[in-house]
């Protein structure tokens, strides 16, 4: 109880609440703008929070992180364009509902399912907190190394159909993390005698380049797009009552989100696909999925919105981000002198709980805001795309230039911006690069620490958690190889059958 009061005193200050309010509403607004998303907003605003107190800066960015998916459902349902990538599945049933003039109902259900998913996952995590506090100290250097390795493997393998490119880009990210003056032996790595490379490539510069500048460039180089929005009127409160009809799907989807969120590298996409297929499999009207079935919206939105809180678990307990947004949140914690890791759960449990309370509050703030402001958000979506590109470039200067007032940083960010343009145009993933940078640095550090105390390779996995993580890595790789071989065999057999039939 003392911890609860202590955590309430951390968050219950006017500036922190104001930051949470601004962050939450800002997150919904950027989420509702197709092609902007939380990554761009966090990347730009992160350096702007340097001058704020840690809890204020963190809650503002946490607000954006936790609320963008709420806003992302609006364009997904109304114009068939997901506001954030994780709202893609919502378009399957949301847009057909809009076409049969049920846009308000679809939006209302999406808000309610998102709210349910968000609150469900936070409550799960508050209940899990004591367990985590007891497990976290069992993670030493080798366990964190193995967990980070598992994370990077999962990040790669979850990019189905793009595994080669994801692994290649993760390797590129690991390489980028090594550039500069190496900290233990003080040797230069890949600096090519250039002074600006000696301090390494800053994660924030890469993030702003890959996410913000690249998005600005993409919007500016392509023809203007503007959307014609359908009329949506009426109140949005009914969705909360209607959600009760789909409580089984909402609960399953939220549980999926919690589990997938806790495993680094899995996240929203996997939880959405699992819950969507569960909802379809168990539905009385499976044939209506993809044609405007409300169950599909509930499965998709409850699943994706329950992930952010759960993804904070590996991030806070082990310092391991699962995807690019949590990688950015890791940078947010570091710049505000909050070092995620087992010690945080042991010694600053009140701070961790304060973050969960902030997440809970933001869900309440966002649902209230959405109930009354959807019409206003629809006006924001009318901003023409090239004008939006100009706005993003203007904001990006604050993100990069305020770091060190360095023109070189801006040039490096612009170079990554052009690289990001190519990746976006080819629909290749950017998250493996960011995770490669963050996890590469972590793995190098932890492996070096762990190997100083290890004499034989088997000693590396002789502790229970290390052994479990090692088995998980072997299983994940083994299972992937098995599924690939099985798919190839089935493909070959079906081809043979086709030839024989002919």
């Amino acid at each position, binding site marked *: 109880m003392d911890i609860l009061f202590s955590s309430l005193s951390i968050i219950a200050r006017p500036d922190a609440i104001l930051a949470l309010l601004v962050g939450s509403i800002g997150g919904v607004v950027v989420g509702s703008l197709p092609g902007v998303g939380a990554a761009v907003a966090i990347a730009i605003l992160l350096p702007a929070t*340097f001058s704020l107190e840690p809890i204020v800066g963190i809650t503002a960015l946490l607000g954006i992180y936790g609320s963008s998916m709420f806003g992302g459902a609006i364009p997904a349902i109304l114009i068939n364009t997901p506001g954030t990538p994780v709202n893609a599945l919502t378009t399957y049933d949301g847009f057909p509902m809009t076409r049969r003039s049920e846009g308000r109902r679809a939006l209302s259900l999406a808000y309610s399912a998102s709210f349910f998913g968000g609150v469900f996952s936070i409550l799960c995590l508050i209940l899990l907190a004591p367990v985590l506090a007891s497990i976290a100290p069992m993670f030493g250097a080798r366990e964190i190394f193995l967990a980070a390795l598992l994370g990077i493997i999962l990040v790669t393998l979850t990019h189905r159909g793009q595994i080669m490119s994801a692994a290649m880009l993760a390797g590129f990210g690991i390489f980028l993390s090594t550039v500069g003056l190496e900290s233990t032996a003080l*040797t230069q790595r890949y600096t090519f005698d250039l002074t600006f490379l000696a301090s390494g490539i800053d994660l924030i510069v890469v993030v702003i380049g890959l996410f913000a500048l690249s998005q600005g460039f993409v919007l500016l180089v392509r023809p203007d797009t503007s959307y014609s929005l359908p009329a949506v009127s009426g109140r949005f409160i009914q969705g909360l009552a209607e959600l009760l009809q789909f409580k089984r799907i909402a609960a399953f989807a939220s549980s999926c989100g919690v589990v997938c969120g806790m495993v680094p590298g899995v996240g929203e996409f996997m939880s959405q696909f699992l819950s969507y297929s569960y909802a379809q499999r168990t539905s009385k009207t499976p044939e209506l999925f993809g044609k405007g079935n409300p169950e599909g919206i509930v499965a998709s939105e409850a699943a994706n919105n329950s992930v952010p809180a759960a993804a904070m678990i590996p991030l806070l307990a082990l310092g391991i981000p699962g995807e690019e947004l949590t990688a950015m949140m890791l940078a947010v914690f570091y710049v505000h002198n909050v070092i995620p890791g087992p010690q945080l759960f042991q010694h600053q449990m009140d701070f961790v709980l304060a973050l969960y309370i902030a997440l809970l509050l933001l869900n309440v703030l966002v649902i209230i805001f959405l109930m009354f402001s959807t019409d206003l958000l629809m006006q924001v979506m009318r901003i023409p795309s090239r004008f939006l590109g*100009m706005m993003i470039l*203007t904001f990006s200067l604050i993100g990069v230039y305020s770091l060190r007032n360095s023109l070189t940083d801006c040039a490096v960010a612009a170079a990554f911006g052009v690289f990001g*343009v190519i990746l976006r145009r080819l629909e290749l993933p950017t998250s493996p690069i960011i995770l490669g940078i963050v996890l590469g640095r972590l793995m190098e550090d932890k492996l070096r620490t762990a190997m100083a105390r290890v004499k034989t390779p088997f000693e590396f996995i002789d502790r229970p958690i290390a052994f479990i993580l090692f088995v998980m890595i072997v299983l994940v790789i083994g299972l992937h190889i098995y599924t690939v071989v099985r798919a190839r065999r089935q493909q070959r057999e079906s081809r043979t059958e086709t030839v024989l039939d002919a």
Partner: protein
Amino acid sequence: MEHQKPHVFPNARKPGELLFAIIILVLALFLISQIGNQTTWLPRKGLAAQPRLWPLIGLGTMTLFGVLHLWRTSRNERTPGRWREAAIWLSSLEFVVWYLIYVASVPYAGYLLSTLVFCLFLTWRAGYRSARYFVIAALFALCVVLFFKTALNVKIPGGAIYEFLPDPARPFMLRYF
């Protein structure tokens, strides 16, 4: 509006994908060829403590999967438009130039004036030529400066141009704009 299922995991080769695969593999091969010059191998130190180990892991992964990515991409059916796509990539360089001019101008012209000119110019360049858009762009620029520099005091240097202002206005402009 036509209902299209969103494209999540692409299978076919997009225009420019092979070109990108080649470029990134060439980059990986060049970087890995420099590993002897650009990293150090410390005598009498374990493998985990070697400064060369992690660049090698990163570049090794990049090269290995770069080769596999190229092999896989080359086997897919080609979609025409490779050079047209490359031209789109290169066209983003124009905005890189405007962006860098904007950044470079801040220490001289000040954040307010630079942002105002950048927003108005880019609005014009993006094809919005009506007075309405110029007014919105100017208001947007002003709001950005007021929010970040004036209110949040984000670390952006004052412009050299402010030195020409009379005494009471100079410190005010340097501090807030």
